[in-house]
């Protein structure tokens, strides 16, 4: 597999763009030199890079593409809206319809607001919690990801100590460490923000232990702390009503983004009635945040998710992939460690801590035309059909045989 065009573009890019490609798609955190840097087109669960290499994709644009690339119904709805206009002086009716749809689907929610990215709504939710409680501190899971703003970015450039002076971390599935922070800061904690399952990069996903999130909910309720669920990765992939439904707890606010608009830029924060006044006081806007096309895309995507029982499909396809990978690993003496929900899984070579064999495996899978990310959780879409999973597994078998 050749990456000449990717390389040539990247050489041009580094002259005019810091790092050439930045953020989560930086080649430095995938497989430099052995993975594509630039895409050219995509359809269903496959995409092509600028060198014309085709991949069965297991990242789905790092999550947003839940129905598959270029879904005809979503694309048609977006095209139709664009013909009428997208960016206006005002919101459109679609914003109201979308808020109504989400409030209807999410059991505890009474209102919704919209942004473009996950960070927009996680950071805004923290502000709402501070406005509501009049407190400063925020507790979050150690190693959790909530976006790129100063309070939570995993990067280290441009930060000052004060950015994190009221942000404190506790360990996933470790109530003792949560209670310790609660005891230390109880009267000053505005919010606790968690993901429904722990999905750190370069590590296994971890599901919540029985009662872990419910216990946090209980403590937040008792102490007047706003409990925020960052459901950016899991939302609409593992449950249509929000991932809390799957794990038996109820937050006070929930943030969605990926999977909402099948790739169109849109995110949302939803909350309880009791937080509505506080929410009304925290300024929220952006140049494109009221655009109509992404809202239309979200409405159509949600409609299809429900109509086609996409969550169940993702579970089935994800489980087929998981079983296949585990069996092949066993067969070839390369044990696979599976973690996370089947629709948002992470697979790595078991019994290694340095990812070297994992990187070699994923390098070979790239060469075989399957985009397996070595370090980040994967995503499945409605476009992944049984034959795609089986084709993937055939290629895995060939690669494992050669490893």
């Amino acid at each position, binding site marked *: 597999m050749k990456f000449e065009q990717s390389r040539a573009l*990247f*050489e041009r890019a*580094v002259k005019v763009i*810091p*790092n*050439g*490609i*930045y953020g989560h798609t*930086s*080649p*430095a*955190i995938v497989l*430099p*030199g052995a993975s594509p*840097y630039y895409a050219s087109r995509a359809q269903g669960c496959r995409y092509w890079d600028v060198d014309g290499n085709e991949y069965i994709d297991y990242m789905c644009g790092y999550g947003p593409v839940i129905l598959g690339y270029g879904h005809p119904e979503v694309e048609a709805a977006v095209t139709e809206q664009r013909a009428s206009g997208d960016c206006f002086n005002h919101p459109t009716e679609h914003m109201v319809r979308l808020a109504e749809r989400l409030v209807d689907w999410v059991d505890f929610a009474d209102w919704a607001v919209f942004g473009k990215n996950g960070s927009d709504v996680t950071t805004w939710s923290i502000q709402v919690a501070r406005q509501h409680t009049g407190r400063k501190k925020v507790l979050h899971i*150690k190693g959790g990801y909530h976006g790129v703003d100063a309070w939570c970015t995993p990067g*280290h450039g441009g930060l000052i*100590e004060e950015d994190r002076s009221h942000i404190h971390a506790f360990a996933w599935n470790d109530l003792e460490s949560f209670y310790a922070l609660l005891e230390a800061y109880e009267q000053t904690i505005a919010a606790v923000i968690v993901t429904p399952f722990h999905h750190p*990069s*370069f590590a296994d996903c971890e599901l919540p232990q029985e009662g872990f999130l419910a216990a946090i909910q209980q403590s937040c309720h008792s102490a007047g702390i706003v409990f925020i669920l960052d459901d950016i990765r899991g939302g609409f992939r593992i449950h249509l009503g929000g991932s809390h439904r799957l794990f038996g707890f109820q937050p006070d606010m929930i943030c969605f983004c990926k999977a909402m608009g099948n790739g169109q830029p849109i995110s949302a924060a939803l909350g309880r009635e009791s937080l509505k006044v506080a929410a009304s006081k925290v300024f929220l806007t952006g140049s494109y945040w009221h655009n109509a096309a992404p809202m239309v895309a979200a409405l159509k995507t949600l409609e299809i998710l429900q109509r086609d029982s996409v969550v169940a499909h993702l579970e089935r396809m994800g489980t087929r992939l998981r079983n296949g990978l585990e069996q092949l690993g066993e067969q070839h003496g390369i044990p696979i460690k599976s973690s996370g929900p089947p629709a948002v899984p992470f697979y790595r070579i078991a019994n290694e*801590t*340095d*990812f*070297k064999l994992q*990187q070699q495996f994923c390098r070979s899978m790239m060469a075989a035309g399957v985009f397996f990310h070595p*370090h980040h959780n994967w995503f499945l879409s409605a476009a992944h059909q049984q034959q795609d999973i089986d084709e993937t597994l055939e290629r895995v078998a060939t690669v494992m045989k050669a490893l």
Partner: protein
Amino acid sequence: MTECEVQHLRCRLYFYAVLASMETLVDACPKARGMIEGAAFSICFRTLSGLRTCLSFNEGLCQFFGPRKTRAEIELLFLAERQAVRMFEKKLAIAPTPIRGITRLSSVKPFKQLADYMECFLKPKAGDLKDAAFRATAVEMLLTVALAGVCQLAEYEAFARESVAQGPQGLIVFHLPGEMRAFWLRLESGNLEWGRGEPSTSPSVSIRFMDTNIALGALLNKIASQAEVGLGNIQVDGLVPLADHLSMLLERIHLYLE
């Protein structure tokens, strides 16, 4: 950090990281060896606060002992850490007080020469960098300062200490181009140690610089490292977060050293 804590850390960085690169310089550079040819003395810098660093020079070799050697033939005392920092930065400073070997002070001359020469490598000028041998020496010296410096930061800077305790652990090996020696840094249970040569155990992550210009750029914080990784000029294999974490710590050294 208070101003006093900052001065303490900076003094440590000069004593235990910058001076450590003098041994690297003499090892790597014939001209530097020539400067101390015939010299035979040991020298110790001390501060009233209790910091101490020693070097010995003998038969064209330089050995850096840091705080491990307790006595030297010549001992110079700084009354304040700030005084030591200012001297290393070549700012107006009161000279340290000789407390041992006062009659041998003239033998310190080659040390001063060597220290001036060392600066050429640690703050390299564009013209000097055209020479491949110069670049190679500069890379080894800067890497010495970086790794030894990170060990100091991890112990004496609150941010780095916390970051090291919470971040990924493991062994990092740096492969330099051609025949140059490897360097390594081990981060285990919050403790750091570094060394030259191939480590005895398999590293968690290896960082390979494809040429000395890239290595210099990375060490002097003058290049976008992720871009160079994408271009294949820096290869990182294994536990990438450990390399990223170290990179963050290395950048902090620039907050304290000129």
